[in-house]
């Protein structure tokens, strides 16, 4: 178990910067998920922590010791790779025990620890097999066992579940969570899958284009996205975003004539400002067409999800998704109204993309 401090870490390949100054403090035993679209620098950040990638500037400290110049093996991190990176010519037991063999652990001791680790990930009966003879999920577990057996201070996961099928992914997600509870080691998990991020992390780090957009508990990130990007990236279906401005009457206007009421606390400061208005699909409601205060729209298509359904509506050429739980009997092209509670509205500055809040001081602290 170890705390990790990341201070002003940057990474540039020649002139091409991919990580622009990341500051992050990770408490001992915490499960951190770094979430972001591909190419946002999240894997690079993880690899810098692991020591596989040099740090261009800034410093990374593990347990208070700056590790910038240390070799990967001296940092006490174990890593699970996206494609598992199992040694194809070794048996499962040799794969798991390789780190111990390199470290010069005596054979008997090594065997004992490999077997104990295999038991944790339910691989006892596969120890003599080659990775080729294993299924995707089993290979994944070998990769995990290989990390666990070293009893590392820090676990690093680089999108370890993205090569698994959907069902297995859910199962492995639960297994990783359970494992973390059991071992309690500091873990950093990189993913582009926001469901994975929401379910696994104690805290989420949302990254975009080499910058940290928001750090916070999953519920906070979901309920109070710090920026337009976070709002659009976290949550499924994505948050509905409308571009417009706040007019003199303190009402959000877009397209010149459509109006949506916004929370009274923010409106006054923003008169005349261009803003992006965001509403979660789950927060919007479908009402009878023509209900006062509702926005008129037509049904485009309906996504049936079993437990719920998402009605995609056409909203003057813009798409607007509404998630409903009850079955709906609507045909494509039907006219509906969309009702939005002002309390469910998120506002973002059109210029900076940052969240505009009733309490600005708090918002700033959040986005830092």
């Amino acid at each position, binding site marked *: 178990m170890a705390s990790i401090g990341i201070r002003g870490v940057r990474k540039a390949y020649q002139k091409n910067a991919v990580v622009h100054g990341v500051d992050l403090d990770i408490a001992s035993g915490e499960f951190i998920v770094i979430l972001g679209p591909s190419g946002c620098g999240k894997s690079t950040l993880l690899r810098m922590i692991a*020591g596989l990638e040099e740090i261009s500037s800034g410093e990374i400290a593990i347990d208070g010791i700056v590790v910038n110049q240390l070799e*990967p093996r001296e940092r006490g*991190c*174990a890593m699970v790779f996206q494609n598992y990176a199992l*040694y194809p010519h070794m048996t499962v037991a040799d794969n798991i025990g*390789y*780190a111990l063999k390199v470290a010069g652990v005596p054979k008997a001791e090594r065997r004992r620890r490999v077997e104990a680790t295999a038991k944790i990930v339910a691989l006892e009966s596969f120890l003599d097999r080659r990775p080729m003879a294993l299924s995707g999920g089993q290979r994944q577990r070998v990769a995990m066992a290989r990390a666990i057996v070293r009893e590392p201070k820090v676990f690093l996961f680089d999108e370890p579940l993205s090569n698994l099928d959907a069902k297995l992914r859910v199962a492995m997600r639960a297994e990783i969570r359970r494992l973390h509870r059991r071992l309690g080691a500091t873990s950093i998990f990189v993913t582009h899958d926001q469901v994975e991020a929401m379910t696994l992390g104690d805290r989420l780090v949302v990254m975009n284009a080499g910058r940290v957009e928001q750090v916070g508990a999953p519920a906070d990130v979901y309920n109070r996205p710090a920026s337009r990007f976070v709002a659009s990236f976290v949550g499924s279906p994505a948050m509905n975003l409308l571009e417009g401005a706040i007019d003199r009457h303190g009402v959000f206007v877009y397209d010149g004539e459509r109006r949506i009421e916004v929370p009274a606390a923010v409106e006054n400061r923003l008169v005349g400002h261009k803003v992006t208005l965001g509403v979660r699909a789950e927060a919007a409601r479908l009402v009878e067409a023509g209900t006062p205060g509702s926005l008129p729209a037509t049904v485009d298509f309906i996504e049936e999800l079993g437990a719920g359904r998402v009605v995609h509506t056409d909203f003057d050429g813009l798409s607007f998704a509404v998630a409903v739980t009850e079955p709906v009997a609507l045909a494509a092209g039907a006219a509906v109204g969309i009702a939005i509670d002002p309390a469910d509205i998120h506002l973002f500055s059109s210029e900076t993309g940052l969240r505009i809040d009733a309490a600005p001081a708090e918002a700033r602290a959040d986005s830092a």
Partner: protein
Amino acid sequence: MVERTPLFDAICQAILLIGLLVALLPFAIVIIAATHDIRTVNIVPMPLMPGHDLMANLHEAWVRADLGSKLFNSILFATSVAAGKVILSAMAAFSIVYFRFPGRSLLFWAIFITLMLPLEVRIVPTYAVAANALAPFQAILDLTGITWLVRTVSGLQVTLQWGLLNSYPGLVLPLVATATGTFLYRQFFLTIPDELAEAAKMDGSGPVRFFFDMLLPLSRPNMIALFTIMFVWAWNQYLWPLLVTTDPKFGIAVTQLKLLIPSEFGLPDWNVAMAGTLIIMAPPLVVVILMQRWFVRGLISTEK
């Protein structure tokens, strides 16, 4: 081909059969000639039914060409060259693929260009180096003025001398460097995912360990293929062994064939020459057959 017409298949089979016959016929003639006595072998045309003198001819060839010691030399020579190539090219490719150092690609291309410089082209300079393996270093010392400096200071003339003529190292070393093998390994190493090297790094393995624990086991089929090809190639070398070994003690089997071939006015005992050819042909054949088995097994066990 995805053709499925019976006629087309039959034509293909016929062509293949003809090709096989054309390829095997010379061997058949060698084997048959080796079984005749000297009179029968010189009848024109030579009878195509095997005779009864095979063992006698083999014995005669063995004794006349001193094949016992020559075959030993040949096996030692070809094995050393093949093994040397397998080891050296693996290490060269390892350094080129896995280490970032200045001049890396320059080095690779320098190695690659030697493909265009086979031994026959550079045989004179190679002979000069073999005659004194330290000659290049002597040249460096002379050019940089160190020889002059040492002579002026101490009055001693620096002369480096290490002759390799008429020795096993002289036979083997100049043939060990190989661009083909390096290239083969390089291409293979490039197909190994980076994550494997990174995983090994995370597991605490250094470069040397990684080389022995990961790369060598993974490239076993490659090594066997390279060894097989290079063993046969080295076995068939003629010019270099002839040039570098004037002492018959270090002669190899293939150059010994010269002794068995009848001279213009000598006894035309082609039966003995053919018997000698058979003996000399056998070891590479055995190596290919044995290695082929391993080769296939290696490919199956990795299941790429």
